[in-house]
């Protein structure tokens, strides 16, 4: 039997490995090389220019502000999403009237979970077009329509939502939170349900209040799941390309008005596809890579704690 083992191993690995190396690993490596050239992408001609692309990036105000916007997203998106998801998950699992059956969730918890999770399966195009409707600047927009109806704003001067330099990025962040909370709620719910109920019941017998059970029991026991969620949200915040490029104003790949919602990915795509600066775009790809790398290392270090077994 032994002599047939190696042909089998090679036979099973060859296709996936070749495909993966050609289409994933090799392009990853090439990017580093191209980032050191002035390649336009249109022809084979390219000159080695050393680190000049990177030097140019540090002087590029649009790119610097794009990095800033990504970092802002990185701060706001995970915090808001995780807090909301934890809050809802706690309500659904422990927040119910605790009359007869000890600790339990609110009634209709399963129903809420189905609804909250739904945006997760909607394609990003639908999210984008949907929220362009919600953020419309006239009374036909859902948000402005509600505000006018409630008398909170003058119908003559509606909010400019996506076109407002100070609001555009926040509008996109809102969509990301809106669509993401349901998923993390279900994630945290699953983790909470694996916590034995007697831990809660013991705490209740000792006279713990609901807030205490949350901070002293739920949170520490969920720490590992929260850490996972954090990493996933950080990756989402570094991306955000699909929504920003389609929702915000701008000639190519959004980022407007006047670069106020520019993120690294939109600027990269514009330089690559529209401006034909392939080498420069590669340098941005490398910067995105290093920021992601630093972030994952930092977040894994900072959130490291002793694992609690139960």
């Amino acid at each position, binding site marked *: 039997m032994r002599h047939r083992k190696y042909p089998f191993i090679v036979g*099973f*690995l060859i296709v996936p490995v070749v495909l993966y190396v*050609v*289409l994933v690993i090799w392009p990853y490596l090439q*990017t580093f090389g191209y980032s050191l050239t002035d390649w336009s992408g249109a022809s084979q001609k390219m000159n080695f220019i050393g680190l000049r692309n990177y030097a140019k990036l540090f002087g590029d105000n649009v790119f610097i502000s794009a990095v800033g916007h990504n970092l802002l997203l990185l701060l706001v998106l995970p915090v808001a999403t995780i807090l909301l998801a934890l809050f809802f998950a706690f*309500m659904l699992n422990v927040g119910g009237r605790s009359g007869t059956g000890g600790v339990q969730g609110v009634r209709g918890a399963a129903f809420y979970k189905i609804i909250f999770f739904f945006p997760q399966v909607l394609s990003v195009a639908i999210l984008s077009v949907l929220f362009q409707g919600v953020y419309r600047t006239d009374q036909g927009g859902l948000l402005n329509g509600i505000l006018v109806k409630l008398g909170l704003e003058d119908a003559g001067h509606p909010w400019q939502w996506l076109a407002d330099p100070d609001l555009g990025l926040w509008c996109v962040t809102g969509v990301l939170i809106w669509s993401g909370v349901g998923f993390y709620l279900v994630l945290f719910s699953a983790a909470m349900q694996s916590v034995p109920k007697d831990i809660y019941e013991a705490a209740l017998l000792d006279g713990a209040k609901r807030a205490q059970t949350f901070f002293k029991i739920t949170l520490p026991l969920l720490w590992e799941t929260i850490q996972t969620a954090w990493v996933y949200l950080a990756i989402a915040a570094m991306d955000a390309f699909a929504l920003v490029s389609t929702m915000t104003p701008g000639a190519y790949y959004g980022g407007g008005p006047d670069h106020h919602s520019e993120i690294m990915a939109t600027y990269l795509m514009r330089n690559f*596809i529209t401006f034909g600066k*392939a080498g420069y775009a590669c340098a941005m790809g490398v910067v*995105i890579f290093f920021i992601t790398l630093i972030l994952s290392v930092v977040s894994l270090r900072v959130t490291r704690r002793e694992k609690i077994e139960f």
Partner: protein
Amino acid sequence: MSTKTDATSTVPAQREVGGTPPRKPVKEQRFADGGGILNVFSHGFLALWALMIVGPLIWIVLGSFKTNAQIGGSAWAWPSHWHFDAFSRAWSKGIGSFFANTVIVLAGSLTLTMLLGAMAAYVLARYEFRGNRVIYYFFVAGAMFPVYLALVPLFFMVKNLGQVLPWLGLNQYAGLILVYTAYSLPFTVFFLYSFFRSLPTAVHEAAMIDGCSHTRAFFQVMVPMAKSGLISVLIFNVLGQWNQYLLPVTLMQQQSGTDPDRSMLAQGLMNLAVQSGYASDFPGLFAGMTIAMLPVLVVYLSFQKQVQAGLTSATLK
């Protein structure tokens, strides 16, 4: 959990432990802060968020029955007529073919992803050979890198491949299928690797002793045993590839005026929204979105338990 409770409830002496219904209301078991006020409070927040999710979606569906003037006039206008002409307009503008494109590509890429991913993960998890660790870490590393790092060379790679093998180039189904598969492999291998490791070896060994070949043991013994793990990672990949936007936008661009539009659903819908397609036809756009949402909604509602369980377990690994 539930089976455990059922088991204990059949033994009367242990009834108290299982937390089964016959338990009497005991005052001490309540939260010290009662729960009545908080219950109203929590229901309020949950209902509000549910409304925030469902509201915009219903609003869009209603919008596909409105006229353009009604949509622009007021967000609260009720559709004045219930004709389906916006739906046929949306369909004729290509929603149907975008759907078909997406289904073709996903059918190919999901089959390949699952097959190749399971094969690689299985060999890496269950066989010892030189270079095993190197290949495994090679795959795992790919899951950490952002796609942007590869984007520019990938575009030219596919473009050049197309000059040698035309059916693999830009704006070709096969090209995109291979790219989707390649970029789904790291996570698929990573997840299935630990799954195959957790499976018992006895059944597999018995099959081998009975003269089963390695390949047959994989397809007839290991794959059925790994079904739950395969489903989890399949759901993860379905959603990931269904929601993919960056790769089709980069790779599925029409190469000339005569090149057919092979946009994926997300990309095509967005192009129609951004370009002239729907410039003055919001009911048509909303109808297109409704058409695009409906099958997802139906599939999600029928399989929501599996979808939620699959996604969470795939993420937590």
